[in-house]
């Protein structure tokens, strides 16, 4: 062997080839594609109207101001009322929390019953429930409005929560059923031998193991409800319109000059909740999705 020759030893050296370069290029372009509009929105929301009128879409504002944000939050007109988006924000909060809690709770119990207990016709029920996932819900609006109004659940908070829970149940049940199916069945048998009944087994054994799936379900349901527009518009009633509907009213009912900065700020405010949830829980989300069996 000649002196100075490279002897293979230890970790194999990495090569930065064309393929890798291509992948990085694609990723960067894709990231820019999504980040660019966000960048423009943030910039615009911080510029006074005078500066916006001069063009300069990409330039950093010479005189940044949070005035549009304050206006969007407190005094912008959404339709006839001019109290800003905060009304819609609190409406959305009040709709989202009970919807998420109820839908997740019911989905969890459904999934638990379907995966561990010998429910008669369990597979058929599950199949029907799954079918529910694929039905485009526009088809159901008219009958649902009739049903809801008969039940006194139309045009009020109870109505929108009811509808949100009903539409979320198939997916929530599917999530939890599949998760529970991945837990060892012997765990359930052991609890039964120990004398735990339906609720005791669920509360003492299954619920504490549901953490990863709870996170996933929470993220799905909260962002979904928050982003919902059409259900809120139809079922919530005039006093409970969610933030998305009010944002739309605000943007579409402008008189006179269009206040781009305020509209951008309002849009960002509306998107903030799902955005924060994704940032904070991204890691848990992946972990929950990837969670396999919890082997004791």
């Amino acid at each position, binding site marked *: 062997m000649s002196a100075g020759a490279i002897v293979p030893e230890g970790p194999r050296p990495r090569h930065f080839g064309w393929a890798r370069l291509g992948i990085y290029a694609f990723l960067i372009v894709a990231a820019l594609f999504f980040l660019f509009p966000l960048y423009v929105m943030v910039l615009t929301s911080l510029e006074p109207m005078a500066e916006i009128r001069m063009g300069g879409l990409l330039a950093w504002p010479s005189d940044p101001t949070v005035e549009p944000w304050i206006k969007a939050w407190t005094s912008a007109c959404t339709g006839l009322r001019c109290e800003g988006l905060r009304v819609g924000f609190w409406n959305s909060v009040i709709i989202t929390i009970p919807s998420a809690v109820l839908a997740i709770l019911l989905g969890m119990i459904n999934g638990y019953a379907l995966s561990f207990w010998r429910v008669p016709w369990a597979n058929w029920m599950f199949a029907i429930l799954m079918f529910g996932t694929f039905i485009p819900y526009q088809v159901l609006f008219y009958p649902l409005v009739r049903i809801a109004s008969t039940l006194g659940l139309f045009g009020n908070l109870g109505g929108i929560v009811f509808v949100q829970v009903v539409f979320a149940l198939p997916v929530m049940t599917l999530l939890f059923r599949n998760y529970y199916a991945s837990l060892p069945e012997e765990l359930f048998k052991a609890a*039964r*031998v*120990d004398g735990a009944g339906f609720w005791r087994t669920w509360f003492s054994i299954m619920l504490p193991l549901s953490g990863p799936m709870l996170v996933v379900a929470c993220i799905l349901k909260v962002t979904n409800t928050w982003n919902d527009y059409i259900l809120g518009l139809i079922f919530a009633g005039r006093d409970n319109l969610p933030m998305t509907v009010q944002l739309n009213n605000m943007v579409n009912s402008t008189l006179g000059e269009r206040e781009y900065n305020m509209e951008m700020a309002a849009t960002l405010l509306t998107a903030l909740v799902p955005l924060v949830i994704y940032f904070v829980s991204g890691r848990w989300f992946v972990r929950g999705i990837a969670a396999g069996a919890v*082997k004791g």
Partner: protein
Amino acid sequence: MSQVSVRKVDIAFGSVPVLEQLDLEVAPGEFLVLLGPSGCGKSTLLNAIAGLLGVSRGQVWIGDRNVTWAEPKDRGIAMVFQSYALYPQMTVAQNMGFGLKIAGRPREEVDRRVREAAAMLQLTTLLGRKPAALSGGQRQRVAIGRALVRDVGVFLFDEPLSNLDAQLRNELRVEIKRLHQQLGTTMIYVTHDQIEALTLADRIAVMKDRTIQQLATPEEIYLRPANRFVAGFVGSPAMNFHAGAIEAGKSGPAFRRGELSLPLPDRFRDAGGAVELGIRPEHIVIGTGADALPAAVEMVEPMGAETLVWARVADEPFSLRVEHTVKLRPGDRIDLSFPGENVHVFRAGTGKRL
């Protein structure tokens, strides 16, 4: 301790029958092992006794009670599972005390019984740990402890050692046997491992195809297997089998297959016809007797204390077990004799012992 009695039980999953017309009587304090290959219905039977599975027909009695419709907790049983089935979020002590806590027993009693069971299984130092912080052997000891705490008449074990490595399996096997001697509780134990069955059982029920093939003491099953299946399933290394026929010769009956002619005891005189001959490797003896047959060594497998030798007699392969001190090499020529009292003959087709 209670007796367990399974009477004419049928179990079916949908239209697939798993057990048919099964009868089983387990005496109080007996250690009964259900042995069989996977899919033979042994775990199903255990689950039916536990009450985790309903029966389609027949009755299950535990003690003097008909428990066919009773919930598991009301049957006076405790169960140990293959995958331990410990509650992951509870400590060892909580795991062991869960059943009593649900039953509404006072705290002091739960604590006392958990501590007693823990002392019995050397778990006292682990009581505060979660299952994730335990080794496999410790986990299964906790699972046994959980059964112990319930203080019941019947213990059910569903392949409790199958997830453990060989050494731990041996240790825990001894521990279970010691526990049985100490407690005197009725134990029903499912396994596919014949060593576990032979070492632990008072009686073994060998199962195959939804029925019990033979129910007898380990010795009886080893020495007088009721049929071809039991003979092949129990014993390691496995019995030698050769299909052939019994012919009446001048000097008594003999087993014939091709060139091989093996003299048989007189009791097979009237057995004629197609049969299968079986003999265990440890029962073939080297170089003795007038009717020894010449053999050629083909292969040698040293197993420590013993050596398994593969040899051909009249071109038919046989394995035999010899002491490690016997040095043999492929190509060696030896004489083998087949003691008549250890030769088994099964009817071809039905597999029944003759």
